[in-house]
């Protein structure tokens, strides 16, 4: 798993590549937690290069989203594809989160 972060306007865009499984999910969640601690409130998570996600990854996302909600923050997803999109659909994450085709549309949508 590889995580790259960039700031665009007031949004923190987090691109995660590779696999989020039970081994790597804690690292992913810790990374997001540290960004929230540094003041990040608007997150776009780009999953375009994510090959694999299991329930451990979904749990990290849900925990992060709950935390952001408590801080009046926001989390959005872009670039969903393949098996990751399928897992989002099956688990209902597709309907509880805001999903966009691209980072740009996620950033610009108000």
């Amino acid at each position, binding site marked *: 798993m590889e995580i790259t972060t960039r700031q665009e306007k007031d949004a923190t865009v987090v691109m995660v590549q590779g696999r989020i*499984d*039970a*081994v790597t999910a804690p690292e992913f969640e810790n990374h997001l937690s540290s960004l929230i601690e540094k003041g990040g409130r608007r997150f776009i998570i780009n999953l375009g290069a994510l*090959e*694999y*996600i*299991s*329930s*451990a990854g*979904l*749990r990290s996302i*849900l*925990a992060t*989203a*709950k935390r952001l*909600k408590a801080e009046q923050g926001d989390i959005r997803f872009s670039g969903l594809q*393949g*098996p990751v999109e*399928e*897992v989002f659909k*099956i*688990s*209902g994450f597709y*309907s*509880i*989160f805001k999903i966009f085709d691209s980072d740009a549309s996620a950033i610009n949508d108000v």
Partner: protein
Amino acid sequence: MEVLSTIRVPAKLDHLHALIDMVSNCAKEQGLGEKRINEIEIAAEEALVNIFHYAYQGQGGDVEISCKVERGRTFTIEIIDSGMPFDPFSVSEPDTTLDVAERQIGGIGVFLIKKLMDEVTYQRDNNKNILTLTVDLKT
């Protein structure tokens, strides 16, 4: 059913990648596509992680995983542990319509297994949990 490969290791998260690699290689050899292999990996991970976390209640124990094939018909992953009885069919399904605030953290793993596999069986036999995850080879 023909056994293709078996590994027995301590039921610890450290072994997850080795076990998933084995399952993935077996599935590849049976000609399954990338998407189906990904789904098999997810189902196997969910089943294994449940065992790592709950089966032995802090005490050590092993997990054994085998790949089996019924040529031209089905590909099966069999996962055996000697821990606490755990019937995945006794787990209630998560409510996938709740919003972020109300959505519960648990229950997604077993739900994914059932949704992604063509057949799932559970048996408690001789103090062992025997879980099978099966996909059809005919497409």
